C-alpha cells in the first residue's frame, strides 16, 4: 500500500499532540494540590508556617503563676516588676526565651540569666544615640562618686533589677 501523501503532516500532528499532553501533564504535576489560582500561592503554606513553635512565651508565661514559693519567689518578683520603673520590661527581656521553661506541670528548662553588669549596661551604658531622658550610667553621678562606683562595679550590689531605683 502506498503511504498517504499527507503522512508527514500526521506525524507532525502526533508529535505536537504528545508534546502538548506532556506539557499539560508536567504542569499539572508541578502545581501543588492546594494552589490558590486567584491569589497565586500554595494554600497549605499558611498552616505550615503557622505551625512553627513559639520560643518566647510572653509575660503570660509568668503572670499569675504560683510557681516558686519563697525564697525563690517568682510571683513576688513579677509583682514588683509590674509596679516599678521596669514595668514595661518583659520577663524574657532579661531571662531569655521561657516558652519551654515549664509545661504540663513540669519544669523543663532553667530561666537563664546573665547577672554580670553587662546585662544592665546593655541598656544603661551612656551612648550618644540613646534618648536624652533615658537613665544612663555615669561614674560622676553624685551617689556613684561618693560610693566610688565604676563601670565594672556590680550594679546589683545596690540596685534590685526587679524594683530599680
Amino acid at each position, binding site marked *: 500500500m502506498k503511504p498517504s501523501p499527507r503522512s508527514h503532516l500526521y506525524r507532525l500532528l502526533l508529535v505536537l499532540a504528545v508534546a502538548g499532553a506532556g506539557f499539560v501533564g508536567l504542569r499539572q504535576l508541578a502545581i501543588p494540590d492546594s494552589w490558590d489560582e486567584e491569589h497565586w500561592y500554595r494554600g497549605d503554606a499558611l498552616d505550615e508556617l503557622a505551625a512553627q*513553635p513559639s520560643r*518566647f512565651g510572653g509575660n503570660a508565661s509568668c503572670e499569675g503563676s504560683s510557681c516558686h514559693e519563697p525564697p525563690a519567689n517568682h510571683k513576688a518578683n513579677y509583682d514588683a516588676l509590674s509596679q516599678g520603673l521596669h514595668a514595661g520590661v518583659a520577663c524574657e*527581656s532579661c531571662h531569655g526565651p521561657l516558652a519551654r521553661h515549664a509545661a504540663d*506541670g513540669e519544669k*523543663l528548662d532553667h530561666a537563664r540569666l546573665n547577672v554580670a553588669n553587662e546585662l544592665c549596661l*546593655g541598656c544603661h551604658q551612656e551612648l550618644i544615640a540613646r534618648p536624652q531622658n533615658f537613665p544612663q550610667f555615669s561614674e560622676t553621678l553624685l551617689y556613684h562618686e561618693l560610693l566610688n562606683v565604676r563601670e565594672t562595679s556590680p550594679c546589683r550590689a545596690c540596685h534590685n533589677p526587679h524594683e530599680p531605683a
Partner: protein
Amino acid sequence: MKQPETNGRRVFLSKLLGGGVAAAGALMGLRAPALAKVLEGPDEGFDPGEHDYVFVVDIQKCIGCGNCVRACGIENNVPEGQFRTWIERYVVTHEGVHVDSPEGGMNGFEAIDPALREQAINAFFVPKLCNHCAEAPCVQVCPVGATFTSPEGFVLVDPEHCIGCGYCIQACPYGVRFMNKERRVADKCTWCYHRIRRGQQPACVTVCPTGSRSFGDTRDENDPVAQILKDDQWDVLKPGMHTQCQVLYVGLPRVVV
C-alpha cells in the same frame, strides 16, 4: 502537641513523678498546660479577614540594646550572621551622616569615636525589618509564587515552594531579604506570623524594654496602634517607592533611608 522527650533522665523522672506532679500542678493552678497548647497548638477561631495589622517603630524610644535582634534570631532560627531585623545607628554631622550596625546591633553598640562625637549634631537608633508592603515588589517578581501576600496582609515566603532564585532579594527596595544559608531559600521577617495567629505579639515586640516596637490591629479601637493612626504623625521608609509600607515609623528623621 508536646515536643518529643530526648533526655533519658527526664523521661524516667517524669514517669516516676507523672501522676503526682500532674495532680500537684492542677492543685497549684499552674497555667503551664494551657500555655503549652497556646505555644504550639492550632489556632482555632482565627479569622484572617477581620484584621488590619501594622507594625509601629518609635525612633525616639529605641535605646539600641539589641534585645529585639537577639530574640528574633532565637525565635525564628535565623542563621548566625544573617538578620530578619537589625538596628542602625545614625550619627549626623555637618560633614555627612555616619551609619553603623555592628552584627546588626545584636550585641548592642560601643561608644562612638570621640572625634565624631564632637561633631555630632544628632544621633539616634533606627530598627529595621520587613515592611510587609501592600504593593510588594518581591511578590510581583517571584516566578513561582513562593513569595505571596497572605489573606491577613502578611508578606510571606513558602520555604517548600521557593526555588532559591533570589529575584525577590534583588527586588526588595529595603534590603530586608536574604538567602538563608542553611535552608537555601529566601528568608525575611514574617512579623512572626506563627505568633500572631496564636494571639501573641512578635518576638521582638515582646522583649523590647522601651516600647519602641509595637504591633497591632488597626481595626481594634482599643489597640494602641489605632491611636498612632489617629495622631497621623508617622512616616514610612522610601515613600517614593509607592510600596505602601505597613511598618510605620514615629519620629523618623528625614536623613533616614
